[in-house]
């Protein structure tokens, strides 16, 4: 049953698998077990100064005044830094690739938009002196109404969170308030479906909680440059961001990283380097900016909490003929990387299933919560949780085995995806077959014979060699399939009238291997960057 498809990645694969099956030691392991791996904070400098930050106690408030006079006179304090001291006090991470508007200050000046937002930085001779000085700063706030729910934030008259995006939605291409996907006619298909399954999935924000918190040390070099030791996961990204905020050429910054005490996506946001560098410039001394655990939890971005509605139109024989998704990504008060998460989510809909009618709306929404960011497949993981829960519920609704229900609907080579790209190199069915075998999960014969190759051994809602034909009954223990209007399966032609010819019987043997592939690369669709809208590679 298991077959190695060597045509996939043919131009990249090397069948001399000499590393497989035997352990290869990691180059950093000896350092890890002897405690000699050098993380950013394992570098020592004479006269090191420490930067600590006064943070907003309010989720949304106007700053009336800031009195830092007493803090400036406190023992050990070398410098107070306010928003006005930051050369470019407004940034968005993806501005480096011209994606989104600058919306987040390094230090808030007029309004704070989430609890924990930085307001004033103190640089002192010890962390303790800095913390004691922070306690002397008096900030007068005028609390403002706040919004914490993604759908509340989209209602007319909702509190406006982010000055760059007054309608509380990220703007794609400076024009669209969400990511939109339309394929076929989902609403018409729901009217034809035997079962409509409408569900809501709510995710929680998740803190990465790396054992090493975010931090960096900026050290003035003797040649006018600054050496920055950092916990970043994204060295050059952080370097360019820090250069922009400090209005300095990037060749004045020398970033040193590499050994990171856990990140999981939570160390791509350049949270500490820009102010550490600014403080080193202003004081001429090395400055460490290290987040406490509390700051890591409150100010370090979490994975955003997503809310996802999924509505499926299902035929009694198990074919999914329509799927509608509405997803809201809680970006928190600023953009960081949630705008990109929504793009990834939209690109993943409707999951690895051939569904001829798909409609999706994915929003990146601003609320007065901690800004969210990358975490382990963000954008896709939450959606997949919802989709696969939905698949289990759908299987129950039609009385099918959940694995067989997935196999029935899985992509086959040549199927048209909702994004108008042909499915290639599909393998979900084969994965399911191997998983079932290993778990001793019984699959019926038809499903053991199924294949991801073109046609795939069964008629489905959207697949098959002849995509204009009305789907034939699937091999499910269903009641008599209800008459189905043929589904529109390709964007370039409207739904066709039912074909007159009778469908052929389902194949009894696995599909034959495809014709010999033409020379050259056969793997992968040309890769597509959803951010740039251009093809790479």
């Amino acid at each position, binding site marked *: 049953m298991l077959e190695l498809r060597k045509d996939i990645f043919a131009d990249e694969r090397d069948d001399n698998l000499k590393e497989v099956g*035997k352990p290869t030691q990691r180059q950093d392991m000896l350092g*890890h077990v002897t*405690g000699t791996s050098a*993380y950013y904070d394992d570098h*020592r400098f004479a006269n090191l100064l420490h930067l600590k930050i006064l943070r907003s106690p309010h989720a949304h408030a106007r700053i009336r005044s800031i009195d830092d006079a007493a803090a400036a006179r406190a023992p050990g304090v070398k410098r107070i830094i306010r928003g006005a001291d930051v050369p470019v006090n407004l940034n968005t991470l993806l501005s480096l690739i011209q994606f989104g508007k600058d919306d987040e200050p390094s230090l808030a000046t007029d309004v704070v938009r989430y609890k924990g937002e930085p307001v004033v930085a103190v640089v002192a001779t010890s962390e303790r002196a800095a913390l004691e000085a922070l306690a002397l700063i008096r900030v007068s706030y005028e609390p403002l109404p706040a919004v914490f729910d993604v759908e509340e934030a989209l209602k007319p008259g909702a509190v406006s969170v982010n000055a760059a995006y007054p309608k509380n939605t990220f703007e794609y291409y400076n024009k669209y308030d969400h990511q939109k996907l339309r394929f076929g006619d989902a609403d018409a298909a729901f009217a034809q479906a035997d079962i409509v399954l409408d569900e809501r999935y709510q995710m929680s924000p998740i803190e*990465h909680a790396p*054992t*090493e918190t975010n931090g960096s040390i900026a050290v003035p070099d003797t040649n006018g440059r600054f050496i920055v030791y950092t916990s970043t996961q994204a060295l050059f990204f952080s370097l360019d961001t820090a250069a922009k905020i400090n209005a300095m050429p990037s060749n004045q910054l020398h970033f040193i990283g590499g050994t990171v005490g856990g990140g999981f996506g939570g160390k791509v946001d350049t949270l500490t380097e820009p102010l550490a560098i600014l403080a080193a410039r202003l004081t001429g001394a090395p400055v460490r900016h290290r987040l406490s655990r509390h700051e890591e939890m409150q100010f370090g971005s979490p994975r955003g909490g997503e809310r996802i509605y999924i509505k499926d139109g299902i035929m009694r024989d198990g074919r999914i003929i329509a799927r509608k998704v509405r997803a809201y990504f809680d970006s928190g008060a600023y953009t960081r990387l949630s705008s990109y998460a929504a793009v990834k989510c939209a690109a993943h809909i409707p999951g690895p299933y051939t569904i001829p009618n798909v409609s999706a709306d994915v929003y990146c929404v601003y609320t007065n919560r901690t800004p969210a960011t990358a975490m382990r497949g963000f954008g896709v993981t939450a959606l997949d949780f919802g989709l696969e829960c939905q698949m289990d519920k759908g299987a129950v609704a039609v009385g099918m085995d959940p694995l067989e229900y997935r196999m029935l609907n899985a992509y086959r080579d040549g199927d048209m995806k909702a994004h108008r790209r042909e499915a290639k190199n599909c393998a979900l069915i084969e994965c399911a077959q191997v998983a079932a075998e290993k778990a001793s999960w019984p699959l019926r014969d038809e499903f053991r014979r199924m294949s991801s190759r073109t046609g795939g051994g069964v008629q489905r809602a959207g697949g098959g060699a002849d995509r204009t034909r009305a789907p034939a009954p699937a091999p499910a223990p269903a009641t008599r399939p209800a008459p189905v209007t043929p589904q529109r399966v390709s964007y370039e032609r409207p739904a066709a009238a039912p074909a007159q010819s009778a469908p052929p019987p389902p194949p009894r043997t696995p599909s034959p291997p495809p014709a010999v592939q033409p020379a050259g690369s056969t793997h992968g669709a040309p890769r597509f960057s959803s951010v740039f809208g251009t093809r790479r590679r």
Partner: protein
Amino acid sequence: MKTPVQFRLNGEEVAAFAESGANLLDVLRESVGDLSVKGGCWQGTCGTCTVLVDGAPRLSCITLAESCAGKSIETAGGLRRGAELHPLQSAFMERFAAQCGYCTPGMLMAAKALLDRNPNPSREEVVDAICGNICRCTGYEPIIAAVLDAARGDSRRRA
């Protein structure tokens, strides 16, 4: 105000001036210069900073440095004897029981405290010994296997 503190660190006498109220973690890292001890939460919850004080595992971030005067401190930086790795270190390497490596020094010391008093622990006893040490790369199973390997003395046997 600073107070002189003297203790044994990995068998060597050391002395430092500690800020009044300073914790052992800061004194070890900033004054003595033992950077094998890592800080993770500075509030006694994650186990990253675990060291042995007179053989018992202690969270150095919430241990007053002054309370360690005259005591014997062991850290991961002192596990190795010359070029020879401690059996726990070899076992951690061979079992791939470290990913980012940041929790590893504390994890090693928690495991050493166990093996020093119980050379043949059960799996449950190993789990109990490291239950206060958080690994966020979620590698607990290899760590448990490594500690059991080290206890059985077969850390160099496996291919």
